[in-house]
């Protein structure tokens, strides 16, 4: 079942489109925002609300890379692996991050805090290499700067 809040957020966008199908990605994003990732139950809930089949939603969820059909950590790190960042040191940063977090690309750290994903161009190529963590962009990265940023997230989580 969709929560009241999920329902309201989906409902708020209904008038933007002439039919409910057009809402399906937005609805999946809303469910993901509340539940961390899109579970089978999440697919079923959205399917019911929008009068689509779970298979149709599955087709959407597996096509669009920002819909997570597997559990992710508390923070999702999106490391840009496109050409400008590659030239400016992506491989070195990838090595550094995977060693630091003890995980490979596509994996989640044992403490469930970080998921590391490669990502296409983040549109800040004049400040390459770059990454995003959740909704924040980080630019002009080097291993030292990455350590500081990761430490900041760890500290904030502990403080909370």
């Amino acid at each position, binding site marked *: 079942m969709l929560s009241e809040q999920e329902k309201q957020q989906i409902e708020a966008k209904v008038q*933007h*489109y*002439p*039919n409910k*199908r*057009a*809402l*399906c*990605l*937005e609805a*999946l*994003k809303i469910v993901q925002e509340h539940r961390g990732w899109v579970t089978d139950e999440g697919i079923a809930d959205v399917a019911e609300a929008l009068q689509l089949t779970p298979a149709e939603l599955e*087709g*959407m969820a597996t*096509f*669009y*890379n*920002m*819909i997570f059909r597997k559990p992710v950590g508390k923070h999702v790190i*999106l490391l840009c*692996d*496109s*050409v*400008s960042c*590659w*030239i*400016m040191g992506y491989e070195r940063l990838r090595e550094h991050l995977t060693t630091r977090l003890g995980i490979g690309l596509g994996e989640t750290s044992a403490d469930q805090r970080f998921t590391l994903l490669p*990502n*296409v*161009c*983040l*549109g*800040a*190529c*004049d*400040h*390459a290499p770059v990454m*995003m963590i959740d*909704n924040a*962009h980080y630019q002009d990265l080097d291993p030292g700067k990455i350590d500081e940023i990761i430490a900041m997230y760890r500290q904030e989580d502990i403080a909370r």
Partner: protein
Amino acid sequence: METPLTNNISPGKEPPDLRQYENGGGYAAVRKALRMAPAEVMALVEESNLRGRGGAGFPTAQKWSFVPMGNDAPRPKYLICNADEMEPGTFKDRLLLEGNPHQLIEGMIVSAYTVQADVAYIFLRWAYKLAAERLESAIVEAYRQGYLGKNILGSEYSLELYLHVSAGRYICGEETALLNALEGKRANPRAKPPYPQVSGLWGKPTIVNNVETLCNVPHIVNRGAAWFKNLSRGANGGTKLYGVSGRVKNPGLWELPMGTSIREILEEHAGGMRDGYRFRGLLPGGASTDFVVADQLDVAMDFDSMQAAGSRLGTGTMIILDDKTCPVGMLLNLEHFFAQESCGWCTPCWSGLSWIEQILQRLEEGSGQSSDLERLQSHARLLGPGHTFCALAPGAAEPLQSGLKHFGDDFDRHIHEKRCPWR
């Protein structure tokens, strides 16, 4: 030198709010356009010679002219701003979206009026969080002030405008794939014809324009076609946002006259190569353009000149290849991107690109053979125009075919030394 697109933009600062935007002359183009007939606005844009800034360079007014007009036209008609900037190496629309959202909204209102669209969408990529926030609040302001909604500024014309935030995939930037994405389907491209102008979003007449294209429209309406044409150095009118990334002294983005030479952008604005690095080549307008090398640097960065030079202006944001970066590795990175982002619809693309990636991988690792180069050539031909529904495949072929041509010696070294000389 005039810089109409970026005049009101101070990077790192808040964008102008509605009041500040109006005080700088903002929304005057909406007032002016509403007093003109749609056909008059269309004629003005046609005369200005504005061409699409998304990469293809199609004349904007000509695109608009295919939309059915009059009382018998199918309704609702749609105007979509393609803000799905995801071309590797491209970071130009982001500046316009974050820096002056009202300029884009004004451009959309005027353009929508010209084709008499009823509903407009901004199709924004998910990664541009700040742009989303700023657009949302600018849209609210514009509605409140009567620039959007029913009977705009008391006229007969009404327009609803919504922000649609996507959920990833490069293919969404392709015009017809974008329409499917917006309809809540997988973003596969559609067969053309019918063209979106006649049968687009939900089968209705639809225009899809790039952010930078739309941002030019209010200035053309305010200042006129002759003024716009005079901004440029060549036949292709206006200014252009040019960017440079890679190992240059001063990577960045600048609004310059359309037709500024590659050399001037690279040396005067980007400051030339960093100390210790030599220039090998560049992709002039994102990942899906042909390499340009040292003897072509005096070419003007406009649509016609770049095409004549065997490449494309593309998005106008250059990616520089230096001598300490392996060209084979760079091509592997580029083709990995295209293979990953292929939507899986057309065989030369989904199948061909994964083979290309594998062949480049073994060449880069030193286990390739000379015959692999012919294989790559033949794959590049199969990806060419006319073999796939959309331009992703031909785009992927551009750096590949030109890379094979310009960096043949580097490929040979990988094959003969059985390793990457850069590693």
